[in-house]
């Protein structure tokens, strides 16, 4: 067996670290405090959002500034199903995901009439419409929202620690599911098309990739995950409200910053970005309005100097993927990818 | 003093290019080109598609990614100048594909040239004298003109900068033979006013007919140069195609 290059060793080490971290997360409740579990729940929720936005923007060339719409829809659908329609809370979760998926269809139909920059702001307008409508729905608390009734909350665990652990595992499952689903998608035929689109959309089109179909599928693919994230957010905050459930800042803008800083167009990027985001937040939280200012400034700097983010910076020196999504042509010889 | 009273060999050349290499990323479009043009002479550059002719012209006005070599124009170092400075110094390019501004009128297209260049003997009156159809259509948007008329606008725009050196990139491309003939009747008149002209063409016949000297480009290098009268047509064809 031939010896490995430093690059290969490094990639292996990183993969091992990733595995260890994953195992630690699975053993979470036994390793971490309740506070830490809550933080990790938030982490996994944001990571899911980042993975979804990255899929659309980094591969399918759909720059959405409106994904918070589906987070809010998930939240309100969950509330509506479980509180108003008296559906079992666990069933309501699945129902919320389904409703988010269904509402993504007309949204998509409208948005896809627009192109490029129009599309981005168009998604924002669509999100605003959902926000305003949610605020007018009878029974949902209007403009100021409403809290989750105690019985519903207790359905996820009688004690605070029990609930925290349950929700933690839900978020972990969500993040893992989002991750695996995206990974599987990228390794599939659709994924081949998406990677081709990421690298060169025009060439992809002329090579036979059905751009329109890939875009539609990608957009709809992300909807249920976003909806589920909305449910989790509601379970953590214990209430729904238009401004909070449909918060553009929390569920879209911060997510965009995360993906761009971490590295768009890769699977490693959103993970890195979410970690950096939490580090910045924990360290800068005392500085009030300066925190978003710094975040904004860093994003600008990143996109202007290294558009592929921190992961892109890493890739300049080390071309091996830590999370392999590339396809090998013919018999695998070694792990070196063909990607630049 | 007419520029033609001094022979091209003894006067200091208006444009002197030494070892020009042009690069687009990793691709090398020209290799160590040596070339010179004098005032009041027409120099023709012929060559097949991809021979490096357009890249050469663009390098002269500094619209390429990277280049190396010496570019001297009227005592100035073109390599150290920006495109607006070069135009103001007296080098005008008639770009490949005409590249007019479609939503501007004929007059507005011409005016841009007038504003960017130097003052000199050429004014709107002179341009309308050379190309009468332009004065008839001065207020029409450039995009409604025929190909030949658009080429005249492009030439007029370049001429209104009062250049000392006029670079014409494939002005006959896509035009009917009659129209090409009209254009090439005007070229010697422009030369007679003292301007040095570089004519880049794929069509050998026309350009060699008006040229005082020619260079043949092959795969980015000068494969042959001389006077059209001194060289056999067959020899030229061989160096054109690299046979």
């Amino acid at each position, binding site marked *: 067996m031939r010896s490995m290059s430093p690059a290969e060793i490094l990639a292996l080490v990183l993969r091992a670290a990733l595995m260890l971290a994953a195992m630690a997360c699975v053993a979470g409740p036994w390793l971490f405090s309740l506070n830490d579990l809550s933080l990790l729940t938030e982490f996994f929720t944001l990571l899911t959002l980042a993975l979804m936005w990255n899929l659309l923007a980094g591969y399918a060339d759909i720059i959405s500034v409106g994904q918070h719409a589906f987070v809010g829809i998930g939240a309100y659908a969950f509330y509506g199903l479980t509180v108003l329609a008296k559906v079992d809370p666990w069933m309501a979760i699945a129902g919320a995901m389904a409703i988010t998926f269904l509402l993504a269809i007309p949204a998509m139909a409208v948005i896809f009439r627009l192109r490029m920059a129009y599309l981005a702001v168009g998604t924002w*307008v669509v999100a605003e419409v959902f926000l305003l409508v949610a605020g007018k729905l009878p029974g949902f608390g209007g403009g100021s929202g409403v809290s989750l009734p105690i019985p519903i909350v207790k359905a996820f665990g009688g004690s605070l620690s029990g609930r925290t652990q349950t929700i933690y595992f839900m978020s972990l499952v969500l993040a893992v599911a989002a991750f695996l689903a995206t990974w599987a998608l990228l390794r599939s035929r659709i994924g081949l098309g998406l990677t081709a689109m990421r690298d060169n959309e025009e060439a992809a089109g002329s090579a036979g990739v059905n751009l329109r179909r890939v875009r539609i599928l990608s957009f709809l693919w992300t909807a249920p995950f976003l909806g589920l994230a909305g449910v989790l957010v509601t379970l953590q905050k214990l209430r729904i409200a238009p401004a909070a459930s449909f918060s553009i800042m929390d569920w879209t803008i911060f997510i965009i910053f995360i993906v761009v800083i971490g590295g768009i167009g890769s699977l490693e990027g959103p993970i890195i970005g979410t970690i950096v985001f939490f580090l910045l937040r924990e360290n800068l939280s005392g500085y009030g309005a300066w925190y978003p200012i710094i975040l904004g400034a860093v*994003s600008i700097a990143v996109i202007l100097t290294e558009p592929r983010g921190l992961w892109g910076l890493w890739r300049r020196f080390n071309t091996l993927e830590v999370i392999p999504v590339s396809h090998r042509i013919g018999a695998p010889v070694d792990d070196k990818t063909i990607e630049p | 003093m007419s520029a033609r009273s001094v022979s091209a060999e003894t006067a200091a050349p208006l444009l002197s290019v030494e070892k020009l290499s042009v690069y687009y990323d990793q691709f090398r479009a020209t290799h160590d080109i040596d070339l010179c043009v004098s005032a009041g002479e027409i120099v023709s550059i012929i060559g097949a598609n991809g021979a490096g002719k357009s890249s050469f012209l663009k390098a002269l006005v500094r619209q390429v990614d990277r280049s190396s070599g010496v570019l001297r124009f009227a005592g100035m170092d073109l390599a150290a100048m920006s495109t*607006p400075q070069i135009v103001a110094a007296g080098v005008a*390019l008639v770009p490949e594909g005409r590249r007019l*501004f479609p939503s501007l009128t004929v007059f507005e*297209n011409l005016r841009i040239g007038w504003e960017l260049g130097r003052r000199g003997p050429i004014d709107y009156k002179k341009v309308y004298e050379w190309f009468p159809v332009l004065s008839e259509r001065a207020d029409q948007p450039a995009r409604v003109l025929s190909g030949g008329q658009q080429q005249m606008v492009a030439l007029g725009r370049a001429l209104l900068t009062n250049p000392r050196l006029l670079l014409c990139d494939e002005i006959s491309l896509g035009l009917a033979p009659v129209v090409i003939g009209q254009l090439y009747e005007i070229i010697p008149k422009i030369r007679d006013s003292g301007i040095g002209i570089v004519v880049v063409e794929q069509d050998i016949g026309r350009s060699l007919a008006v040229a005082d000297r020619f260079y043949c480009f092959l795969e980015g290098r000068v494969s042959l140069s001389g006077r059209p009268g001194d060289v056999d047509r067959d020899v030229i064809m061989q160096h054109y195609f690299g046979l």
Partner: protein
Amino acid sequence: MLVTILNLVVQGVLTGGLYALFAIGLSISFGVMRFINIAHGDLIVLASFLLMTFANAFGLNPFVAAVMMLPAAFIFGYGLQRVLLQRIVGKNVLPVILVTFGLAIIIQNGLLEIYGPDTRKLSGGAIEVASINLGGLIDIGVYPLAIFLTAVATLAFLDFFFHRSAIGARIRAVTDDPQAAALIGLSPARIYSFAMGIVMVTIVIAACCMSVWSNFDPAIGPSRLLTAFEAVAMGGLGSLWGTLAGGIMLGVAQNFGAQFDAAWQTLAQHLLFLVVLALRPQGLFSKG
């Protein structure tokens, strides 16, 4: 009943003048430089706060102060393009959104830090309450009418400027074909910066009109952007007068919506936009 509807329409049209003013700058930056400046609304709010500080510091009437600010506005716009926005010209939509969104966040939070979250309003004097009576049927506020006329005058001036002046021709040339412009010796960077200077001037005009008419605070930038964007998109790319039409449509729709409640006011505007764009994605008066 008819009078009520007529009143709503007229008030809506006048409001549309303000929206057109919001939108003009966006129309220029999108039409010329081809990017959507997401910070556009926040720049309007920034201009409003700066106008307030300047006017208060020197005890000036806001209109006078605004006129005095115009040259500085031009220089600011020129510099902003030259230093920052020029780096995203011609690029993919993602860097554009990132940079302008980042800029928007910085401006919003910077204003929050410096001025706090309270709403402000500038006083324009007697003109604010004056009104004219039309045919005994409707009362029109003199100030809204003045804003509408300002919008029309600004549009007319810009139309003239872009189509009759030499520098307007250069701007249109670079808009047509930046590469060809560079080939023959124009500097797209300088021309874009000039255009951005004009954009900032229109932003100050819009800010002045807005800050006297209604309240403003650091957080309203995004809603101004959406209004401006919708007016431009409905009007059509490249059409300045289309922007006025778009603004008027938004104003009228909003006014009808407001009869129900505040949420319907905004919903009406967004729904109108989505319907128009769904039917005619390139806008109503697009020049293609």
